[in-house]
């Protein structure tokens, strides 16, 4: 086997030993919201989430780039940002309060 064939066999073995069905699910899930989700709403929700994190002790400046498509995404984003600041105080209760303040977040959950 030459170098390319040897690498091809390695990759074939990776495919044979480890099925990657979860990747297909991720691609399909990632594609679905884009067909209906208005970017402006997503941007508004990110802003609200960042504000909430900031109010709970985190910092907007530390927030990682992210696209928010569901309430789970908001929660992950908020928790990640909180962790970066060593706060980690943004939990389910804070998320519920955030949804109360921003009805559009509830819309995310219903549609997502």
């Amino acid at each position: 086997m030459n170098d390319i064939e040897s690498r091809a066999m390695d990759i074939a073995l990776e495919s044979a030993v480890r099925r990657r069905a979860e990747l297909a699910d991720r691609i399909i899930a990632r594609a679905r919201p884009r067909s209906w989700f208005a970017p402006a709403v997503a941007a508004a929700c990110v802003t609200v989430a960042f504000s909430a994190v900031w109010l709970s002790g985190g910092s907007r400046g530390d927030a990682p780039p992210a696209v928010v498509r569901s309430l789970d995404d908001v929660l992950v984003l908020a928790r990640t940002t909180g962790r970066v600041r060593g706060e980690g105080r943004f939990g389910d209760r804070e998320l519920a309060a955030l949804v109360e303040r921003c009805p559009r977040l509830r819309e995310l959950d219903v549609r997502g």
Partner: protein
Amino acid sequence: MLDFPALVRRHHEMVWRYLRLLGCDAAQSDDLTQETFLAVLQKPFEQRDDTSTAAYLRTVARHLFLMAVRAARCRPAFEDLDAADRVFERILADAAFIDALRECVEELPDPRTRRILDLRYGSGSSGAEIAARLELKEAHVNTLVARAKESLRACVEGKVGA
């Protein structure tokens, strides 16, 4: 109308293998496979037969790979990507080859070799890590892997006539 979920399920592993062969690591291949299908979603194409669909997806994937190389996100495994394309067509394009290989791995008579392959290709362990775990010398692990690859290649060729 484009049946996107069906398209993804049918071809995502092929695109992933192609990107791996060109030079991406597993995580980069995950990312660029996603980007390939999302690019197709943004600019739908006319689906004809399976072969031309696969060829189109590889063209998109290769374009994204070259952009990733320019952005220093990936490094090509080979200078001659056309040669890699030809090997891909022969070995990795056909799911039947992978299915046959899976059968051949399961039919390996030595359970220790199967365990080594599982650690190397399933868990991504290095030769040194496998050697430490199984209390073998690293050189011996590498020899067993090389021998297994040769015998598996012969086994697959016997099954699919590659």
